[in-house]
């Protein structure tokens, strides 16, 4: 089997998401599509899956031109897709999700659930997926949900399997499981198209690599090519993949979490007995797969959530009884994980966003009125200092690119005297250039003697920045280790296993 894309072009208004993309894939091979966020990979795959229609170009399967007017057509041609954001209905069981749109029915449209269960079991057994047909999807861990997605595609006899950023939400162990599954499917003669922006995975899994930048194919690479060569193709210039930093000079303890727990009235545990310290002049990185309590941890620290037990102390003062505003006045600088939702008011101007936390006091305001001139002057100053690229500081924050938006948030938080700097997912969805800049800023804060807390689900980022690494799993801290700890150990910890404990357990 052979899949060919010829001259695919797609415009969204003035924006050209795909520009004359040509790409060929053959059975029994894993093809990686590598590119930055926003390079047009997902658009291309949505065209292939029939969710979008191209403005120009054609799709050929075994030399036959395909016309897709919807996902039904592409599925009928043997294309299956595992979306970045799972297309599973959380309140349905695995079997129900599997049959949706293609249901085996008895009379009156009543679903024949036995047949559905059997097809889950058949595929699950054939590839060793270990998925139970009657589990509710919302109760399943992310890795299993992804397997359900793959089963879903296979149950529709997919010969071409597209995986869109499949590893973004997985632990390192789940990733290696996924890679095993993909290799197995490859042996079975399927065409696998693997979309990612992570260089390491590409090297590990791909047979052929196509690199996309700004909607165009800019080249291809072999898995044996070096990471920096590929990175240069992806970004379009030479980049340093790691941040240079001096060894940390930690001094006294500044921030301390003492047995902090957050339990809902329903009994659901959000945070469990969290204890750690951050010293001045060091970066503590909090690693973990998304949704293991990191968001709650940051919100408890800022005062958006209130712990049911424990204490949070900053420079000897308990923060617990303080409001969010009082905590900010204590010198907590905070970069929220979702800048569009919590970091910015997108419909406010850039200059207004730059003083969101200080418009009510001098020099920006007095007696309940604000001083536009002072705000404008400092905004221009900050834009220069933080390299925020914009036409006019009076433009809406919405009009900026993701990287520049994040720089606005960073600039605002660093513009007042800080005692603590917390950054949650500081570079999510940013281009390599902005990542470089923001990482350097964070390290600079550490070198100025600030305690820094970084929460990130990107293990690369954690390694790049942290002096020590704490790993969270299901609301508790599995362990705190030195940043020289190897990846497989951290990976195990991200799955809830503390290797150091199991060893001492054996010794004792």
């Amino acid at each position, binding site marked *: 089997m052979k899949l060919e894309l010829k001259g695919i072009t797609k415009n969204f208004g003035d924006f050209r998401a795909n520009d004359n993309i040509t790409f060929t894939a053959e059975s029994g091979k894993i093809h990686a599509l590598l590119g930055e966020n926003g390079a047009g990979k997902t658009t291309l795959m949505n065209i292939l899956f029939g*969710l979008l229609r191209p403005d120009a170009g054609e799709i050929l399967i075994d030399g036959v031109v395909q016309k897709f007017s919807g*996902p*039904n057509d592409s*599925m009928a041609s043997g294309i299956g897709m595992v*979306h970045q954001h*799972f*297309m*599973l*209905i*959380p*309140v*349905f069981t695995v079997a*129900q999700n599997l049959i*949706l*749109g*293609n*249901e085996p*029915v008895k009379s*009156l*449209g*009543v*679903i024949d*659930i036995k047949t559905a269960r059997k097809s889950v079991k058949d595929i699950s057994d054939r590839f060793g997926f*270990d998925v139970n047909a009657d589990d509710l999807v919302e*109760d399943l*861990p992310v*890795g*299993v949900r992804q397997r359900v997605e793959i089963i879903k595609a296979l149950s529709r006899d997919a010969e071409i399997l597209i995986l869109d950023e499949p590893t973004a939400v997985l632990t390192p*162990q*789940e990733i*290696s*499981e996924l*890679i*095993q599954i993909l290799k197995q499917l490859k042996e079975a003669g399927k065409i696998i198209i693997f979309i990612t922006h992570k260089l390491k995975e590409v090297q590990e899994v791909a047979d052929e690599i196509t690199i996309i930048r700004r909607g165009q194919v800019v080249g291809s690479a072999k898995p044996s090519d070096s990471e920096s060569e590929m990175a240069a193709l992806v970004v379009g210039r030479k980049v340093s993949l790691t941040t240079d930093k001096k060894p940390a000079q930690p001094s006294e303890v500044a921030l301390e979490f003492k047995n902090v*727990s957050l*339990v*809902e*009235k*329903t*009994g*659901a*545990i959000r945070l*469990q*007995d969290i204890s750690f310290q951050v010293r001045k002049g060091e970066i503590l990185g909090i690693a973990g797969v998304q949704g293991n309590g990191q968001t709650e941890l940051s919100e408890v620290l800022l005062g958006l959530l209130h712990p*049911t*037990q424990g204490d949070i102390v900053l420079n000897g003062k308990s923060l617990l009884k303080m409001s969010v505003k009082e905590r900010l006045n204590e010198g907590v600088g905070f970069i929220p994980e979702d800048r569009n939702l919590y970091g910015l008011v997108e419909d406010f101007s850039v200059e207004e966003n730059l003083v969101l936390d200080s418009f009510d006091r001098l020099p920006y305001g007095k007696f309940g009125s604000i001083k536009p001139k002072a705000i404008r002057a400092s905004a221009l100053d900050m834009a220069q200092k933080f390299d925020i690229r914009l036409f006019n500081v009076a433009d809406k924050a919405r009009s900026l690119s993701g990287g520049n938006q994040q720089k606005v948030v960073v600039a605002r938080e660093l513009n007042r005297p800080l005692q603590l700097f917390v950054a949650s997912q500081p570079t999510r969805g940013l281009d390599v250039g902005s990542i470089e800049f923001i990482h350097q800023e964070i390290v600079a804060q550490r070198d100025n003697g600030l305690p820094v807390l970084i929460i990130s689900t990107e293990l690369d980022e954690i390694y790049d920045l942290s002096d020590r690494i704490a790993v969270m799993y299901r609301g508790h801290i599995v362990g705190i280790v030195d940043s020289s700890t190897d990846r*497989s*150990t951290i*990976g*195990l910890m991200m*799955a*809830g*296993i*503390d*290797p150091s*404990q*199991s*060893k001492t*357990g*054996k010794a004792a």
Partner: protein
Amino acid sequence: MKNENEKMKMNNNSADLSATSANSVEVASERATPELKQDSIVATSNVSQSSKTPKDNYAGDIVVPINWKTSIIFTVLLGLACLFVLFSTDAQARFSFIGLNETALIQIPNVNLPAQITIMVLTVAMAIVTALSYYKAIQRQKMNIAFSILFGFSWVFAFLIWQIQGKETDFYVTGLLSMTMALSAPLIFGAMCGMVCEHVGVINIAIEGQLLFGAFSAVLSGSVIKIATGNDGLALLGGVIMAPISGVLLGLLLAVFSVKYFVNQMIVGVLINVLATGLTAYFYSTIMTENLALNSAMKLPVVRIPILADIPIIGPVLFDQSVLIYIMYILVIGLQYMLFHSRWGLRMRACGEHPKAADTLGVNVNRTRFRNVLLGSAIAGLGGAYFTIAQGLVFGEGMSSGKGFIALAAMIMGGWKPLNALAVACLFGFTDAVQILLTTFGASIPSQFLLMMPYIVTVFAIAGVIGKVTPPAQEGRPYVG
């Protein structure tokens, strides 16, 4: 515990797999041991906790905050019940069970209860349940719903006795129940309409207008056919057919604007309500007033189901009813089953929960929404017919009197499940019936308070017993693609 075991199994599996790919065989083989230990901690720490504790719970020393809500509500209600005791006398409360249907095989004699003692006994029962609720709260367990129902029943009964004590006339229990049925039926139809619309992702607040328009067109079309043919049967048939069609016409507005053109569903809904009120008021005051034959009373046949209708007290209420009520039974049971077990139900719920996923599987989301909004609207229109031709009444201006909104509330409080919504609708209907009967009975509390009662009681019942419900995830949001 089942969940935890499964999880453990899965973790072990992943450990095995990772062992094959990474060279961490040593660590992987060891890790089963601590995991097992952790799970056994769960087992012991969970003994005192209910089976409802979350699956992620494996903490020994974490304290779950106590949920006092149910206990507080019970305490407040218990306090009120104590007042009933104080203000009751040793006069008699006279209950009669004579049915509306005198031919029932089994007749129950009247019961006269001494007011104060009966209320005291009920209050003691409530006090026991309240004490139990505190115990359960401290133990962080959920109380069996049967106790809550017992409490609610005792409270209502105590309240009734307090109000009718010493009155010379009998309080007709069967009358209360059949009134409950009459008041609940439009709510149930409305709730089923809302259910279909919201499960597919469209909020329909036009139920009120659809009920009203259904009531109106049932009478109007029935009357027209009657004038034209002189045949009562044909007239009624025409009314029953035109009522849902009129609902569909209004539903078409909702579907076209909110599903096809993405107009805010609330705004379209409000406009439809205004339109229905205006149209019916206009025709009522013009053609129906000028020509009274266009608003003639006609009644759908009442069907008595043998044997079932002879069950004491509830028999005549449930099984000696208008055909429309039997349609309602079939509707509720059918919906309850089909929503969760049929292709139609699966697809429509997918459109309400995660339309994008449905789309990627080839389900045409907006077409599914469009059709089901019309289906729901037909149900509401048919429900409108209950106001008029099911009860043999003529159309009156604004006769739906807000029932469409109460129906929506019943649906929400019933957690978007047909049988639960039915129960809540009946609770609304029951308290409403109590209120009406007590007002005519000459109750001692002011009628304004009695008017509030249905809603207060329901809010207490819902807040205390049912708690949080989850709506379809994407309801109210247009699917643009």
